[in-house]
Structure formats: structure tokens, C-alpha cells
């Protein structure tokens, strides 16, 4: 397919971003990054900056949309929101994640 090896990690980050937007509604990059940090209870020590390539990727795929708005402190900020395809994608990704997790669980319990 031509996607590189970082796809797995990217894929998980993508799903997190999508879920965040689903829960929080439209949000700017900083807000999404902070939320991911909070939910993962600081276990994921990502550099916040890495969210931006991911957001670009998701935009190129047509799963999220970007619009300019005003942030809490009055500054211009870019707000991201889910597209219809993006919403459908969450379901697909969730399903496949759960399948992977279940398979792994079975492996790990078998001796």
C-alpha cells in the first residue's frame, strides 16, 4: 500500500484525535493535545507539536475539517471538526482496534 512503518503509531494517534473531536466537538490543536495528555493520564508523553502533522494527515484524508475561529484568549486559532467520513472512520477504527486487542488477549492467555 505504500504507507510506512510509522503507520501503526500514527494510526493510534489518529484514532485518539478523532475520538477527542467526537467527544469534545470542534477544538483547536492545543485543546486536542491537552485532552490526549489528560486522558492518557500523562502516560503518553508526546511532544505536543506532533499533533500537527497528524492533523494535516487527517485533513488530507478528509476525516476532519479545519475552520478559523477565535480562541479563548481572543487570538485567531484553527478549529478542527469531524466530517461525516471521519465519524464513520471512528467506528471502523474502533472495531478493528477491539479485534486486535481481543486477538492479542487470546495470545497472551494461551500458554
Amino acid at each position, binding site marked *: 500500500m505504500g504507507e510506512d512503518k510509522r503507520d501503526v503509531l500514527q494510526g493510534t494517534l489518529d484514532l485518539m484525535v478523532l475520538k477527542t473531536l467526537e467527544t469534545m466537538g470542534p477544538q483547536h490543536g*492545543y485543546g486536542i493535545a491537552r485532552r490526549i495528555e489528560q486522558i492518557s493520564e500523562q502516560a503518553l508523553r508526546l511532544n*505536543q*507539536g506532533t499533533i*500537527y502533522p497528524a492533523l*494535516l494527515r487527517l485533513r488530507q484524508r478528509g476525516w476532519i475539517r479545519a475552520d478559523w475561529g477565535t480562541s479563548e*484568549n481572543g487570538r*485567531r*486559532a484553527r478549529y478542527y471538526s469531524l466530517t461525516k*467520513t471521519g465519524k464513520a472512520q471512528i467506528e471502523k477504527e474502533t472495531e478493528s482496534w477491539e479485534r486486535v486487542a481481543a486477538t492479542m488477549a487470546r495470545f497472551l492467555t494461551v500458554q
Partner: protein
Amino acid sequence: MFRRPALDQELDEELRSHLELAAVENQRRGMAADEAWRKALRDFGGVTQVRETVRVREGLAFAENLRRDLGYALRMLKMSPGFAAIAIGSLALGIGANTAIFSIAKQVLLDRLNVPRAGELRLFAWRSKRQSVVHSSWGDWDRTADGAGVTSTSFSYPVYQLMRKQNHELADLFAFKNLGRINVTVDGEAQVVQGDLVSGNFYDQMGVQPQLGRAIGPADDDKPGGSPVAVISDGYWTRQFNRSPLVIGKTILVNLVNVTIVGVNPRGFTGAKGTQNSPELFLPFSMQPLVFPYSTMDSLLTSDRVWWTQIMARAKPGLDEAKARAALDVALKSAVRATMTVKPNESLPDLLLTDGSRGMNESAREMARPLFVLISLVGLVVLLACANMANLLLARAAARQREMSVRMALGAGRARILRQVMTESLLLAVLGGLAGLVVGYFGRNAILAMLSSPAEPMTLPGGFDWGVFAFNAALSLVTGLLFGLGPAWQATRTQVSSALKDSAQTTTRRRRGYAGRAIVGFQVALSTLLVVMAGFFLRTVINLGRIDPGFDPRNIVLFEVRPPQSQYSGAKGTALFRQIEERLATVPGVMLVSPTSVPPLSHDYESDDFKPVGKKVAAGKEESALNTAVGDRYFATFRVPILAGRGFAPTDTETSPKVAVVNQALAKKYFPNENPIGKSFKTSDPKNDKLIYQIVGVCADTRYGSLREVPPPVYYLDYRQSPEIDWGMTFAVKTRTARAGITPSLRRAVQAVDPNLPLIDVRTQEEQIEVLLMNERVFADLTTGFGVLALALACIGIYGLMAYTVSRRTNEIGIRMALGARSDQVLRMVLGEAVWMTAIGLAVGLGGALALGRVVASQLYGLKAWDPATLTAAAALLIFVALGATWVPARRAAGVDPSRALRAE
């Protein structure tokens, strides 16, 4: 990629806003301002790095995707070379053929003279009732559409001069005349070239400057013979003089007169007559009496009687053309009255201003309809090619549906897949277009070669027509995109999971079935149409070839001798022909010789008054008939039987009683129920109004100028007793041996009489007839080619569709056979489907053929536009092809092993 600065700005703004939000939150937690900022930066990670990553990703995204798509597309094509070859091949043929023919047609029909603002040019013409004041003309002479009058573009030179003086409406009137073929001698070598006469203001008014030397100017057109100069065409300069600048000042002999070349026309300039080919020589009108003497006249420039000159003028934009025409019409009529005596029943000409931007456009008038027919046929071929490509793409899309679903399941976006498919289709279209370019280029040259004849070589000066090519390329692109994207759109809409299931029945497949069948049906219809057309034209050519011309054309060599009028006028000319005739008869291998003023079947017509003595011809009826001046062994040479009385004999000389031979058609027309032998008739010539001939014989009917026309009434005169011969004579030599061997001896015989007389246009009578049929033959060749192409494409289309259907339905077939169906039943099922599809296509195609047949009816010969034999044969051929194409897939279906089929995917 081009919006780089704006994108960068946006990203920077976004990142800055992110950092500020982070800093604000850190401050709220109690940090100092600068510490808050530093923490924000640390938490962010490398700002520059992020910026770079995003920028690169954005920039590369496009190029990267394109490269990946192209690579993938190329690999896919390499994996199915058959598909690629067929798709690209049919595109190439369709686009190439269409481009070639379209560009020729456009140039013949639409292209304008290569002069500035050609749209301003007006060609003068006139129209009058049948009994016109103009009796003698050289040039166009046509019946008007309603048949009640005549129209022509020829004017007398004095009338031109008078109109020019009285013209205040249009720009200066200028004149030209295409002389046709003239003898020139260059460096001792005798040649025949095409020549034009032009007036002194021609170049100035046309707005054309020579590329070398000078143009013909008013000073050259002043005194007759005063300025023996000529300008040559660019083509002639290349062919004859190797583009040497030394050509300026070179002297050549034109009709044995010394003429100096003073200029070379720019490339692409073809004179005023037409856009297709350029005459080699341009001479001032003042040279007419010397280089092209007409009949026995001293000079056409002073003749009030002969109408021969073409006139054009530029109309300034914004001009009230109706007013201009009216004013010039007055000038014309007054000029006519000043130069001619108008008899009471003769009508004066009315002036017409016609569009001159395409010159005189004669061949366009002849070729217009056939060209339109050709264009539509080629258009159909292009459609066929596109249909083929569509079918192939559909088949591929369906076959790759699983692949697409898998890709989508693995995360590829729909847009991504569609973009991939689009790239593939575009790649195909581009490759097909490039191949089509090559085909079109060579095809155009090939067709031009087919359309040329030695007398009028067709060398369209324009280059390749990119507009036409672009149109065709766009057409193929659209088809590719439509049929590439369409099914892909469908495929990516279906549920991923269901498409991955093995025996899934999706709506896509059913639709694909209908679409595929519709396309193949369409192909069959088009092929039927093209095959029928090919059949029509082939049969026309065959029928024309079978026509009995009324004489025996075998083993007859024809050539013209044109003696210079300055040396051989009047009786001297006749004596010369007699000498040549006798000399030729002594050449070994020659059986019979006869000069003739009109060689048969050469589209040449001579007509003169024919007034039977003692008969009252009804007013308004024709008093003229076609005639030929021949030698006394003419009827023997051509083996035309004399049915009554006698032919000519050596005893019919200049001084013996004037006699004539008529053909049956003339006898029937003018002397029904009587014996024409012994009757007399009157005819006239420029000098003598009272020539009376007595009919001494009746000969069989023969075709005169064309094969299609029924033999017309013709009277024959012995050339020694006939009115002056203008141009020269054609000699018909009946030989015992093949032509090539004998020509040098014939040439020697003629040159023994006068060493300066070349043999012009040596050909055989049979070759002459072939030239006559050339258009029809070209048509037959082209349409047969199209028909074959169409059959091949339809065959491939049917095969492809049936193979696909069978492979898809392997399961179903397996079940049927497991339930007891026999092989031959399966075979019949598959064949039946093909027949059904073919039948519908046939019906539509035959309907179209009937409609198109009516359009081309005038071009056909010997068969009706709904000729049942051709239609049946075409239908049979198509059914045969369809069944043939289905045979292999059908056998495969019948050979399906039920157990394997049920187990397989």
C-alpha cells in the same frame, strides 16, 4: 504548492496561538510569564521541526501521491499488457484517423487564404438569365440553383478596367486568373507547371510581401509584354531551385518567351484561387498575350467578347455592403453596355459580392458533401474506440473491486482511491493520445497521397492541426475519466465487508452487466453502420468499373501537344497536327493514331451551337451540343462502331465539303424518326458565324466526360474542317505493346516534326479512367478500412464482455451443471446471450445505415441507398463475427468442471 507563503503564514499563526494558549495555562498554574513560555516551548517539542514536517508533508503530498499513483498505474498496465495494448491501440487509431481526416477536411472546407484579414475579401460574381449577353467565357459557368439562369465569376478584362475606375465603395479592385498548366523551360529542361495571372495591385491589395526579391507591381502591368517578369511560389523555389538566392534574376522560358524571376512568394501563400496548393508561377496580366495566347486572338486584354478574369476587392469593416453592391452593379451594367452590343432578348448580368476569404473554393464545393460524410464516419470510429475503452475499463473496475475494498479496509480514503483510478485512466488517455498523434501525422500524409493526382497534387501547406487533435484527445480523456471513475465510485461506495465476501452480489455488478451490454450493443450498431457504408462504396466502385464506356480503352496512349500560338496559328496548326499524326503512325508498335480535341472520360467538355438547317427549334430550347474534333481514324482507334453511313476519311480535307458524324443520342434528340444522314446543321466559331456541316454518318453512343452520366448527344467533326483549335490536341495512339516501352519513340516522332514540342501528360486511356474514379476509390478504401477497424473493435468488445460474464458466472454455471445441465445447453445459453445483444445492436445499426444511406445516395452508383444485398451481407458478417468472438468464452463455460467451480472463489 503554489500557495506556499499563505500556507506558511497560516501554520505559523496556528502554532503561535497554540504556544500562547499553553503559556496562559501555565501562568494560571502559577508560573511566571517567561517560565510559562519556556515550559510551553518544551512541551511542544521542536517548533522548527514541526514546521518542516508539516510543510514538507503538504508540499510533497501532491507530488508524492502523483508519483505513487503513476507508478502504480504503470505497474497495473504492465500486468495486463493485452488490455493496455488494446485500449491504447484503439484510442490511437480512433484519434489518429479522426485527426488526419478532420484536419484535411477543415483545410479544404474552412481554411482561409493565407493573407491578412482574409475575411475582408469579396469575390465578384454575376448572375443572369439563360439568354445572357455573355457568349464566350473561360472559367466557371454554372446553372443557378433554380435552373433558370447562369452564374459565373468570370469578367472581361475591359469590363474589369471600367469597373475599377468607377469603384468608390470597396478598396481597389484587383484581378487574377488561374491559367492552369503552362509550358516552361528551366535550364533547358521542359516542364509543365501551374501559372496564375495577377494584376499590378494584387500583392498590395492582398497584403502579401515576397520573402525574396520583389512582388509584381503596377509598373509591371502597364504595357502588354512590357514587363516579362514572374514571381515563383515557395514550393517551386524549394523543389526546382533548391532555395538558392540566385533564383532572382534568373531567366526561364514560359511558352517559349523569356521571363525573368524577380521574387519568391512567402511560404503558405497559395494565390487567390484556393487554399490547397499554390501555382508555381505568378505573372502580370500584361504578359497574357505572350505566355498564354487564347485561340486566335491577339490579346485577351482587349477582347470585349471573352469573359475570363476573376475580380476581388477588400471590403472595409463597417461597410454597407448592399449599397456597395448596388453601386458596383450599376458600374458593371454600364461597362457591359459600353463594351458590347446587347441584343434585345439578352439579359445583363447582375453583380454578386461573394465571400472571397477562401478563394474560389471550387474543390470545396465538390468535396463538401463527401468530406462531411467521411467526417461523420470517422467520428463514429472514434466513438467506437471510446466505447471500447469504456468497456475495458468497466471490466477492469469490476475485477478490481475486491482490491479496492481491501485498500479501503486498510485505511485508504475514498478520494485517494478515486485519484488513483483517475491517474490510471489519464495515463491510458495520454498514452493513447500520443500514439494517436503519430498515427494522425502519418495518416494525414497517406490520405493526401491518396487524394492527389498528377494534375493536381494535393499538398496542404498548413501543418498539423493541433485544434483537431486537442479535441480528439479531450474526447478520449473524458471517456477515460468517465468510465474509469464511474465504476470506481460505485465500488468504493459498497460496504467493505460485503464486497470482501466471496460470492457477494452487489448492485455494482448488476449495473456493470447492463452497462457492459449496452456498450457492446452500441459497438455492434456502429460497426454495422460502418460495414454497410463500406459495402456501399465498394460496390459503387465496382459498378463504376464495370460500366461499358462505349469504346475500347485498352492499349491506348494519350498525350497532349500544345504548340505555341505565335508559331502555329490557324492553318499552320492544323498542318502541324497532320504531320504529327502521320509521323506517329510510322512508329513501330503503333496500330492507329488519331488526334482529338476532347479525350474521352477526362471531365473535359466542349460545346458549341448546333442548329439543324430547315428546322425550327422551339424558343428557349437548347441550340447547342457537345462536340469533338477528331482525326479520320478516331472511330477505328477507339473501336466505336459506325452504325449508318460512314466515318471520316483522308478525303475529308480543309477544302472538301464540310461533313460531320453524329452519335445515336444526338440523332434521337434532333432527328427523331428521321434519317439524319444528309441533313445539315449550322454552328459557329469566333470568326465565322456561318459554318454548315452535312451529316454523313451515325456512330454508337459513348460516355463523354464522365462515367456516371448517360451518353449525351455529340457531334464529331474532322479537325481539318472544324473551327480553330485553341489549346492544342490530345493524341490517342493505339499500340500493340505496353506503354512504357513506346513512349520514347513517340516523343522522338513528335520532336522530329518540331524539337521544341514536349509530350504533355502522357498516360493511358485506362489510367485516365482510373483518375476519374479516384474519389470513389479513395472513399471505398477509407470506408473499408473503417469497416475493418470497426469489426475488430466490436469483436474485441464482444469477446471481452462474454469472457468476463462467463468468468463471473462460473459459480452459477457450476450449479447448473451439477443439477444436470449438459455442456451444449450451457454453450447455447452463452451464445444465446451474445446473439440477443448482437441482434439489438444490428437493428439499431441497420436503422442508422438506412438513414445515412439517404445522405450519401448521390455518391453511390448502381445501387439504391437501401440496397438489400449489402444490408444483408453486413448483418450476416456481424453475426458471424459476434458468434466467433463468443465461441471461446462459450466453450470455456461449457467446459466448466462443476465441482471445481463450486469450490472456487
